[in-house]
């Protein structure tokens, strides 16, 4: 079998399972606080360019980022982008869905892959993140990114 990178789409859903094993390992051996610290480290390293662009308060960068990752993930989601806020609503989380489909349990505090990651993403920017609702069983959730009000 011979393949070039361009022959296939990059979408390996089993990476959700590996990610869950990594989170569980950190949680089991070092505790919840260290798991949160790890997620902060990851966000500060990988999402640094988005955090940097977000300092201007322009939510367009976030809107593009989310539309792009959900499209690549081939996952149904409702994303409403406005000048002052972004609302993201999903009926299930692609990670939790795949982990459960493979017969595994999501790591305790899996919610932190949303809550910690996106709060960290907004650090030192005029944008705040709010996770309005999160269903631990399915990962159905409603998220808000909004610009801080100026007085």
């Amino acid at each position, binding site marked *: 079998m*011979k393949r070039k990178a361009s022959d296939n789409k990059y979408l390996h859903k089993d990476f959700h399972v*590996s990610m869950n094993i990594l989170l569980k390992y950190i949680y089991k051996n070092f505790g919840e606080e260290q798991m949160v610290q790890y997620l902060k480290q990851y966000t500060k390293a990988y999402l640094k360019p988005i955090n940097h662009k977000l300092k201007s308060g322009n939510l367009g960068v976030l809107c593009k980022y989310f539309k792009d990752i959900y499209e690549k993930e081939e996952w149904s989601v409702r994303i409403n982008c406005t000048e002052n806020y972004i609302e993201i609503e999903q009926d299930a989380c692609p990670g939790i869905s795949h982990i459960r489909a493979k017969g595994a349990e999501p790591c305790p505090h899996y919610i932190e892959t949303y809550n910690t990651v996106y709060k960290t993403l907004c650090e030192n920017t005029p944008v705040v993140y709010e996770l309005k609702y999160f269903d631990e069983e399915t990962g159905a959730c409603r998220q808000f990114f909004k610009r801080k009000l100026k007085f």
Partner: protein
Amino acid sequence: MISCTEFIPAYSEGFKFIENIAGRSELENFWSELSDIYLKDSLEKLMSSEGLAGAYTYWGHALNEEAADFTMILDEDKGEFSIDLHHCPSMGMLLELKHMTPYHSYCDHCPALYKPVAERLGYIYTSEIDCDNASCKITIKQPRK
């Protein structure tokens, strides 16, 4: 959410994190646990029932989904399976991300995951890794009788 398309940088940062708080041996413990959990019902099951053809099935699926650039050969007469990974999508992605530094020995996790599975089933696993160029060659052979 950490999308499956963002897993590789998350993985690399995870290696750094574990090594930083508990040392390299702890990271190797993690790789060993990951190998046991993740590969038991996939690669190990396939190779147990199908032999080297199972390895072909496993990597045929994984490398296509990861959009890798590779040549994979199964020579059952010779008792040999090989992957020539011309461009590893994972290490390739990390090398392209100029704003972050990959874990210093990122490629070490591959033999740590796969070699124990092959050896448990009686095969000989060898690899030549050129991490700086995101390429490697893996060979799994049946032992000579």
